[in-house]
């Protein structure tokens, strides 16, 4: 009997993002679809940023995780439309990001508060940070720099 796609989704929710390991590839919203095509499991993923080097690692991690659960016949499909958006981050993922010290994306275009001390006195250092998906901000109260997961 084929494993249910619900079960597959929950396995994938245990595959960490290689750059931000506190959230899963499902939290990140890059797994768009899981379906069976006869005996082959098809997983459709979408890249975050077009040049993100983590994308190929993510596909490999997904295949490895599914193989560990006994599913060897896997096809990863990559699609770019509709384009990935930070709106697809799960609520759980957003909370975990903040816990980890990365301010989650906000429609206003900047972090709501410092993920360390909670102060709203924050300023932008650079629109670009340690990975393509993050910007570099600083708290003017606790003086700590922090990453902000920028909206796209």
């Amino acid at each position: 009997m084929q494993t249910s796609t619900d079960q597959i989704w929950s396995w994938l929710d245990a595959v960490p993002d290689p750059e931000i390991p506190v959230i899963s590839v499902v939290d990140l919203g890059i797994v768009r679809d899981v379906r069976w095509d006869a005996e082959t499991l098809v997983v459709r993923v979408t890249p975050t940023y077009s040049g993100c080097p983590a994308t190929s690692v993510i596909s490999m991690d997904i295949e490895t995780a599914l193989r560990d659960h006994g599913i060897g016949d896997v096809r990863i499909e990559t699609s770019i439309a509709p384009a990935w958006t930070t709106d697809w981050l799960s609520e759980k993922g957003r909370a975990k990001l903040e816990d980890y010290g990365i301010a989650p994306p906000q429609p206003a275009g900047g972090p709501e508060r410092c993920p360390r001390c909670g102060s709203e006195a924050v300023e932008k250092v650079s629109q670009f940070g340690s990975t393509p998906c993050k910007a570099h901000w600083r708290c003017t109260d606790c003086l700590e720099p922090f990453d902000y997961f920028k909206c796209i």
Partner: protein
Amino acid sequence: MSVSVSNDALLQFLLRMGDNTLILGHRVSEWCGHAPVLEEDIALANTALDLIGQTQMWLGLAGEIEGGKSADDLAFLRDAWDFRNVLLVEVPNGDFGRTLMRQFLFDAWHSIMLGRLMTSSDDRVAAIAAKASKEVAYHLERSGDTVVGLGDGTEESHTRMQEALDYLWPYVGEMFASDEVDAKIVAAGIAPNPIDLREEYDALVERILTQATLTIPESRFAHKGGRDGRMHTEHLGHLLTQMQWLQRAYPGAKW
């Protein structure tokens, strides 16, 4: 209903888009480890990464249309005369100010172009444009801010930014040139006529450069020859010797 377009015209269009991002991405990556401060180094590397990622999409599609070629084949196994990028993106980086001025002049065109391509009659082109335009919005925000910061900065930075603008301005016109390839692409509804972007471009560039207290040169003279491959600058060949070295020395080498 859209007019059908020859594969050759579509291929030329895709090479123009993909070679622009490839060559500029390579140029910007030359700063990696050399930028004046860490934050700028990271920002330049991220910009280069986005551009190379976009190249994968444009040249990936071009290779598919050409038949059985990969983006890597097109990037690493063509010679200078096969490239279809505008001359602006192949000129050497110069100092940090000139690099950011070139980035701004390109980003302004790029963001307007991608915005129009999002409604392309070709779904594949529209999808790439939708993806890329999100990234380019950040490129433009940063390059625009930096041009203003340096232009309206110290006497030294102002002078250098004015020199950069004077040097680069003659390369701007080529982005708005049209030829028979464009005519076919426009007729098929795939892309706008480049000349139709000029008004919006001028308004955007003038607004930012005025804030930057810089003077736009009056001459509309334009160096051309890149986007039709007729004559690149000598700089492209030097760039390619570095970019393509590994595939030339070890054909077929894989990561």
